[in-house]
């Protein structure tokens, strides 16, 4: 048995590295443009009072706006964290798949699912942060869930279970 690790395809490595770059750029931009981003989000929320249930009373509305702004900020932070993390997850798991999955089709499928799922999932947070000012916290979350988190996160989880199964199979066959 060959014990050497095999590299995943280069396009996978590129996707993972670009994702990590996006995470770093996103994190840095979040700090650099924090005031501008908050101002933009607040302005967009005030332009859509019905969406956020604003009632025109400062004591009530400030709390609503504050919560939405905290979630907006959290979504950007979570994009930064997940993009960094998923970039590394893609590199690690596709390397395992490239090394241990013998059948070409299943190997390619697992690698594709891990890469597409892993790269897409963090974008859900970016989408959510953009949706919050226009659609509110909950509706924005539902949209991001059905468009990105569930399909891409689901793809990653399916691929990981598949990979785990293959690793167990290899152990049994030893």
């Amino acid at each position, binding site marked *: 048995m060959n014990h050497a690790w095999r590299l995943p395809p280069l396009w996978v490595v590129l996707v993972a590295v670009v994702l990590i770059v996006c995470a770093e750029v996103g994190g840095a931009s979040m700090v650099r443009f924090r005031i501008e981003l908050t101002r933009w989000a607040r302005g967009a929320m005030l332009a859509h009072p*019905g969406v956020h*249930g604003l*009632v025109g*009373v400062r*004591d*009530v509305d*400030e*709390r*609503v706006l*504050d*919560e939405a702004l*905290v*979630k907006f900020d*959290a*979504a950007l*932070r*979570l994009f930064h964290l997940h993009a960094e993390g998923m970039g590394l997850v893609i590199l690690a798991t596709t390397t395992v798949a490239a090394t241990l999955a013998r059948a070409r089709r299943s190997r390619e499928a697992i690698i594709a699912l891990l890469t597409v799922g892993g790269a897409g999932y963090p974008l*859900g947070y970016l989408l*959510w942060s953009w949706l919050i000012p226009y659609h509110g916290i909950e509706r924005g*979350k539902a949209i991001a*869930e059905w468009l990105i*988190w*569930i399909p*891409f*996160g*689901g*793809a*990653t*989880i*399916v691929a990981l*279970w*598949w990979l785990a199964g293959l690793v167990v199979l290899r152990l049994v066959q030893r």
Partner: protein
Amino acid sequence: MRLPVLAALMLVVAPAPAFAHHVGTYTPQDNEITTNFKQVKFSVQAGKFDVALRLFEAGALRTQMRATAAALPPGLESGTRAALQAEDAPEVERRLMIFFAALARDLALEAGRQLADPRLTPEARAAAGPRFLEAIWRYYNLIDFAVALRDDKTSVAVRLAFDEAEGYAKKAAGPEGAGLRDSLRRIAQILTNLIDTSSTFARRDR
């Protein structure tokens, strides 16, 4: 046959955890008025009246007292300042209690007015009710101890009315939104009585 079934099952079951994802948590924070109240209160409790006076003079409490002077008992702001200068802690507490009772009462009145608006959609009514109650409680909660010390019946009455309002708020989307408005009216009435009584005492004490 087993393998495709297992694979299909996996495809259905495995992504289930994707429904759960981190979305952050939100902890409501003090606004500038409640922050300033706590600064002044803790300074007074520590006997640092000079600090309390400085915080009051430069803070949001005084600004808000001036901005809403028409809805407050006469001389509330100047009286609070005088009490701080005289290092009279109970009087400072009583005046701040009146101020926050007035803020909570005004919110209850405004909530009742807005919830009675027939143009309000059921969804908007369902969202607005709890938010108003939260804002009312944020202010009243700060003074409940002071209220209970002076008049425990009023404290209990406000709490009961508030509990009742919260119950109605859950079903405020329907035509029975009237129940919530009644509770809000009761809260406003109890707080108005508290303000009147406390202001009378304050004047008698002078």
